[in-house]
C-alpha cells in the first residue's frame, strides 16, 4: 500500500536558501494493506516531512514513493483522494461549527452523501450533541477527535496520523487510541507517527525508527529480539552461584547472569530450551518458583537504536 525507495528530502535554508538541511535521507519502506505502521523518532527526525511527502504536500528531492498504487509526485490528486491525514495540529476553523467544518471537508473530498458521512463520524466520535457549537469552544481532545473525523470522512484507504495523542489528557488519548484500534479492524493502512512508545507497541504491527535515516524497521517484538535477544528469567527460592556456570553449559544458552535470587538466561528459542534448563536446575537441587520472559520495552529498543547508533537496516 505504501512503498518508498531512497526517498529523501533536502530543504534549502538560511539567507538566500544557500544552506542545505537533509530532513529525510534514503528512506526505503514497504507497508502492506491493513498494516498499522508506527514511525518513531525524536523531534526533527523527519517524521512529519515523510508524512508530508507521502500525502503529496511537499515534493521529494530524491527517490520515489507509491501510495495506494499511485506515484507520488505524478498522481498527487489521485493519492489525496485516497488518503486521510491527521496533521500535527488539528487546524480547524474555530468560528465555524463542528458540522460545518466537516461539511466543508466532505465537499472538498467529493463525498457523495455529505450529510450521512458527517453525521456518522460525529456520532462515532461522540460529538453529535455538540455539532452546532463553534469549534473554538471545544476542548483539545474534542478538536483532535474532530480532526480524526475529518481525516476519515472520505473513507480513505490510507490514513496518516501525525502524533494523534500528543498533548491530550489521558482520557482523550485513550479514546483516540481505542478509535485507532477500531480502524485497524476495518483493514485500513495506518501510518502513525508518535512519541508515545507504549502506544506504538500496543497499536503497531510494524515500527520504523528514523533519525533522518531509517535506523530499523520490524515488528516491535522482532526489534526487541534482534537487539536484546530473548531471555528467560528463572525465579528460584535460593541460588547457588555455581549454577550460573552449569546452566551456561546447557545447549542453546547464549549467556547467563544472576540478579538476586533470579537467573537470567539468554536463549535463541526459549519455548524449546526452557524445559531442558528447568530439568537441569531441578537436578542441581534448585527450587523453581516460576519462569518468565524478560521483556524489554520498545522505549529501550528506541533509545538503544537512537543513541548507541546500532543500525538494523531497512526491510
Amino acid at each position: 500500500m505504501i512503498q518508498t525507495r531512497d526517498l529523501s528530502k533536502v530543504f534549502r535554508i538560511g539567507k538566500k536558501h544557500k544552506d542545505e538541511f537533509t530532513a529525510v535521507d534514503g528512506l526505503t519502506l514497504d507497508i502492506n494493506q491493513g498494516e498499522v505502521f508506527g514511525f518513531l523518532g525524536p523531534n526533527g527526525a523527519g517524521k512529519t516531512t515523510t508524512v508530508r511527502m507521502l500525502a503529496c504536500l511537499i515534493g521529494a528531492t530524491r527517490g520515489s514513493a507509491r501510495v495506494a498504487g499511485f506515484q507520488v509526485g505524478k498522481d498527487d490528486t489521485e493519492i489525496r483522494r485516497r488518503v486521510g491525514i491527521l496533521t500535527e495540529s488539528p487546524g480547524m476553523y474555530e468560528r465555524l461549527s463542528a458540522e460545518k467544518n466537516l461539511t466543508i471537508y466532505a465537499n472538498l473530498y467529493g463525498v457523495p452523501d455529505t450529510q450521512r458521512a458527517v453525521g456518522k463520524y460525529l456520532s462515532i466520535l461522540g460529538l453529535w450533541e455538540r455539532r452546532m457549537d463553534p469549534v473554538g469552544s471545544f476542548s483539545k481532545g474534542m478538536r483532535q477527535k474532530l480532526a480524526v473525523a475529518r481525516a476519515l470522512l472520505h473513507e480513505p484507504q490510507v490514513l496518516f496520523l501525525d502524533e494523534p495523542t500528543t498533548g491530550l489528557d489521558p482520557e482523550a488519548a485513550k479514546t483516540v487510541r481505542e478509535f485507532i484500534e477500531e480502524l485497524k479492524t476495518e483493514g485500513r493502512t495506518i501510518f502513525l507517527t508518535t512519541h508515545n512508545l507504549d502506544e506504538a507497541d500496543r497499536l503497531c504491527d510494524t515500527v520504523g525508527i528514523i533519525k533522518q535515516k531509517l535506523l530499523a524497521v520490524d515488528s516491535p517484538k522482532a526489534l526487541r529480539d534482534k537487539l536484546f535477544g530473548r531471555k528467560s528469567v528463572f525465579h528460584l527460592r535460593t541460588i547457588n552461584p555455581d549454577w550460573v556456570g552449569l546452566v551456561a553449559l546447557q545447549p542453546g544458552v547464549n549467556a547467563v547472569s544472576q540478579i538476586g535470587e533470579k537467573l537470567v538466561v539468554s536463549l535463541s528459542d526459549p519455548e524449546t530450551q526452557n524445559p531442558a534448563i528447568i530439568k537441569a536446575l531441578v537436578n542441581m537441587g534448585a527450587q523453581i518458583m516460576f519462569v518468565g520472559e524478560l521483556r524489554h520495552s520498545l522505549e529501550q529498543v528506541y533509545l538503544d537504536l537512537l543513541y548507541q547508533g546500532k543500525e538494523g537496516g531497512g526491510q
Partner: protein
Amino acid sequence: MKRIRTIIDKEWAEVFKNRMVIMVMLVLPLIFTVMPLIMLKLTASTGMEGVDPASAGVPAKFLVSCSGMNAGECMQIYIVNQFLLMFMLMPLMIPVTIAAYSIVGEKTTRSLEPLLATPITTKELLTGKALAAVIPAALISIGAFALFALGLFVLGIAPMVRAYILSPTWLLAILALGPILSVISVMVAIFISSRVNDPRAAEQISGVLVGPMMIVLVLQLAGLVVIDVRFMLAAIVGCLLLAVGMVYAGAKLFQRETILTRWK
C-alpha cells in the same frame, strides 16, 4: 467548480463572523456614499447659475468636462470627481481585509495543511480565495454606487451633474476598474500574507495600495490630471496588465510546499 464554491462558502462563513471585517465592509461604503451626497447637497445653491464655468476656479484642464454647465455645476462635478477616487478605495480595501483574514488566519490556526491535503488543486484554492474577497468587494462597490446614484435623484441634484456622474467615466470606474483593482488588492494581500503572521499587520502593510490612488488624487487637485474616459480606459488597461502579472506571480507563490515550509 464545486470545490471553488466550497472554498468561497467557507471563506464567507468564517470571515463574515469577524466583526472587524464587517465593520470595514459596512462603514467604508457608507462614508464614501454619504459624503459626496452631502457635499453635492451643500454646494447645490452656489448662486453661480448662468455664470461661465471658466470662473468656477477649477483647473483649466478640467473645463473640458464642464461643457454646457454653469460655474456652479462645474464646481460640483469637479468636487465630486475627487470622490470617484474614494469610491475606488472600496474595491482596494475590502478585499485586503477579507484576504488578510482568510490567508493569514489559515496560517495562524494552522488549517492550511489539512486543506492542502485534500484533492483541491492549487488553482482552485487560489481562485476560491480570490473570488471570496473580490466578489463582496465588487458587489459592495457597485451597491454603494447604486445607492449614491439613487441619492442623486432623491436629493434633486442638478441633471447636468447627475448626467456627468452616470457617464461612462464613472461607470467604467465602478464596473470595470473596481473589480480589477480588487484582484490586484487580493494578490498584494497574498504576497504580504506569505511574510506576516498577523492579519492586522497584513492589512496595514497592504495600505500601500492606497498610495497610487492618493497620488492621482493630488495630481487631479493640482490640475495636472483630469479623470475622463481616456484616462479611465488607460487605467483599466494598465491595471489589467498588472493584475494578470500579479495573478501569475501569486500562483507561483501560492504553492503547497512554499506555503507549508516557507510561510512562517
